[in-house]
């Protein structure tokens, strides 16, 4: 390997991938190595994983259990009825996510799946998504990361986890059958109706966070009127947990009758309108720009070069929102191969790239895992808001955040440092990215654990 291609291998492995113990895996053609990874994400690893239908059955069963817990059967306490709960499903989901990323041979594809799962955030921070986040990532995101953005958008928007996370399951057309029924029932019983109308949450976040972007709102490309109309289009798309057939995601009784006008275009009543609106949103130039900006920010720099963003956006539009050509344009772009790493790793990236560099086996990964990432300030699959985790260094570079990384590195290194030569590992994993002052510190370290802690905290390993 000559020095130019070894620098490229290091960038491919760390910036586009998730870190490697040895750069040999990226071979003599690092661009080709990345290109060959473009496609659906790997089948997820791990045990006890539920698909979407099973996950919904489980949520429904849990609900039933909670109802029973109020009147436990003779001889059982409420706690016994509720035992198990969601913990097993959530633990299996998080384990699978981390294990798959730590062991994959297609780390570029896995990083893309992380990127899209974060773009279309569904978070455990809200109770209504419990037990569904893993199924969302596996069924809505993983198979679709290299298809069209439009299909990804449809899969995300109509997935039960998203419909519940952003409250659409409860949103009813103000003139829908269900609202009229609820009103009649309420009148009969002399109480307030339970179901009355719209909830705008999903509509607003699809526009602002998933497609057009907040910039489009600021420049007046959509307004409150569009949010409300789009919310009306979305009515009826819901999860009926109590139905026998939970796969039915559109309930006409909840749908707002009549046509709706979103962004100046009129759509008919009915379930088909959602696909039409999502199509029009996907091919909108504001969406192209927003998606291109986020991809470039993720792979190149917090403030991405405008020329690169423009190229990615026009590739996206020229190819009818197909993502593979956009990824190819990205790995062809000279801006993405700057030797100076511009991105700071998030806690999850840091933990997983450490596991990969250290060649941890499955058991150790289970131990190093989610608790570590949580302690570093990032609860896996539980982003604080629908905007997902930040992709900017400023948000991860507070003194306390850095201190916690040092603490975590110390702990990992105290366990593994005496059996690993950090100097050798640094050269094999970082190659030409390894800076002389880091190499010097590794040479001078007091002992193996200290050397390994220094390597994990080295600027060229904290950044990518």
């Amino acid at each position, binding site marked *: 390997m000559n020095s130019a291609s070894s620098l490229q291998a290091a960038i491919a492995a760390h910036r586009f991938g998730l870190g490697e113990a040895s750069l040999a895996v990226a071979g003599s053609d690092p661009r080709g190595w990345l290109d060959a990874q473009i496609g659906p994400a790997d089948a997820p690893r791990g045990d006890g994983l539920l698909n979407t239908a099973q996950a919904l059955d489980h949520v429904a069963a849990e609900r039933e259990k909670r109802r029973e817990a109020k009147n436990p059967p003779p001889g059982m306490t409420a706690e016994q009825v509720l035992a198990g709960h969601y913990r097993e499903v959530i633990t299996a989901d998080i384990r699978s996510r981390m294990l798959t990323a730590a062991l994959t041979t297609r780390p570029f594809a896995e990083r893309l799946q992380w990127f899209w799962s974060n773009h279309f955030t569904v978070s455990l921070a809200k109770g209504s998504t419990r037990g569904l986040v893993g199924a969302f990532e596996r069924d809505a995101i993983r198979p679709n990361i290299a298809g069209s953005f439009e299909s990804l958008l449809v899969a995300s928007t109509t997935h039960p986890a998203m419909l519940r996370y952003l409250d659409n399951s409860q949103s009813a057309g103000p003139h829908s059958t269900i609202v009229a029924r609820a009103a009649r029932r309420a009148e009969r019983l002399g109480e307030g109706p339970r179901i009355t109308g719209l909830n705008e949450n999903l509509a607003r976040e699809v526009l602002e966070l998933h497609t057009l972007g*907040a910039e489009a709102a*600021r420049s007046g490309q959509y307004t409150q009127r569009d949010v409300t109309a789009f919310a009306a289009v979305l009515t009826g798309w819901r999860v009926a947990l109590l139905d026998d057939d939970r796969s039915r995601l559109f309930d006409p009784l909840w749908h707002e009758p009549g046509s709706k006008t979103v962004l100046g275009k009129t759509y008919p009543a009915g379930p088909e309108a959602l696909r039409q609106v999502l199509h029009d949103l996907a091919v909108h130039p504001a969406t192209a720009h927003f998606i291109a900006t986020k991809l470039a920010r993720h792979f190149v720099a917090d403030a991405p070069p405008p020329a690169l963003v423009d190229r990615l956006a026009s590739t996206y539009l020229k190819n009818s929102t197909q993502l593979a050509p956009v990824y190819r344009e990205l790995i062809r772009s000279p801006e993405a191969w700057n030797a100076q790493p511009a991105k700071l790793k998030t806690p999850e990236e840091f933990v997983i790239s450490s596991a990969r560099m250290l060649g941890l086996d499955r058991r150790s990964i289970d131990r190093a895992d989610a608790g570590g990432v949580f302690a570093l300030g990032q609860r896996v699959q539980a982003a604080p808001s629908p905007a997902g985790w930040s992709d900017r260094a400023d948000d991860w570079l507070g003194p*306390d955040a850095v*201190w916690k990384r040092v603490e975590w590195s*110390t702990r990992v290194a105290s366990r593994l440092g005496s059996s690993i030569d950090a100097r050798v590992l640094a050269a094999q994993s970082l190659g030409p990215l390894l800076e002389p002052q880091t190499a010097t510190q590794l040479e001078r370290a007091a002992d193996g654990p200290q050397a390994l802690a*220094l390597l994990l905290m080295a600027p060229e390993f904290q950044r990518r």
Partner: protein
Amino acid sequence: MTSMIDSSRRRVLVGALGAAALAPLSALSFAATSRPGDARFVFVILRGGLDGLYAVPAIGDPDFAAARGPLAQYEQAPLTLSGPFALHPNLAQMHAMYGGGELAVLHAVGLPYRDRSHFDAQQVLESGGVRPYEIGTGWLARALAPTSTKSIALSTAVPLVLRGPGVVDTWAPSALSDPGADLVARLAQMYANDPALATALERARALHLGAGMPPEMAGADTMGEAGKNKRYGNFGVLAQRAAEFLAQSGGPQVAVLEIGGWDSHANEANPNGALANGLRQLDGGLAALREGLLPSGTWNRTVVLVATEFGREVAVNGTLGTDHGTGGAAFVLGGAVQGGRVIADWPGLAKRDRYEGRDLRITTDLRAVIKSVLADHLQVATSALDSAVFPGSAGSAKLLLLKA
């Protein structure tokens, strides 16, 4: 304390806002604290958009019950304030501070931004700009920069409001063990060419291993410490720790705390729901802050401002919650505050009185509230407030919030 009800305009003018415009200039000059450097300021950010009308219901407004529907019903009676206003029953300790003249409630308050995006509104709330992203640093950082006033964020990352020219400390509870001083010294050498990592590490080192810190604060035992204070909740732990930092002489003068979970799109009035719990946490945390600052006398020199990025739609949505809106409530409290008042130029709740027919109309600019605190409490020069700190805000009404 008087409230005036002008029935022809259906407006209630409560407290000092109307009077402030007429206040003699001499009243302003007494607002200064005894010694420069003594004043303490705490900014609490409620992320997610607190429903001001739920936390501070205008139960005496003739349109309240009809406008709010099911959200006008409370399991326990709201705690009465002056005029038509009351506090959510979970804010009992704040209500006691109100009774003791230490808490002022602001209503129908908001930012110049009106477009209902969480993320844009929070950017404006913290940057001090008029439009999102026109300014990339925080108003508090810019206000503190000229005097190099020390500040601390009780969070893992530095929030935007404190980002700017100065250096900021951050602190959050840790479950991990402490690295040795030797390793940290070597890391510092390794970061010679990476100023961002070097600065963060040095700030953290000073906080964790530094001198002049009570031993229980300089280490990894914080999770245990936190565990002892369950009655305040997580926010309470941060508030308590903030009080410890602020009570030190030579410690930070300014602290920023954050508490999320206010985005009440559904089942808002559930007495065990997220909003009810959030209010309980807020109430407990502010009480913990007060308790922590009282013994050293620091509380008398403290002003706490609690604000959110926007209020919510007046009417209930289809899921017994509220969607994003504009005007809302804020709180100013502390021993230095002239409390026991609701400060509001009340716009009314009838549909025609609402902003775009849906939100509580903003009649008090939150920037004016912040500027008044910064001027009278932290002695930030008016010229700086009108330009560097809140560009484009010159001429905003001055509010008298502090004890004379």
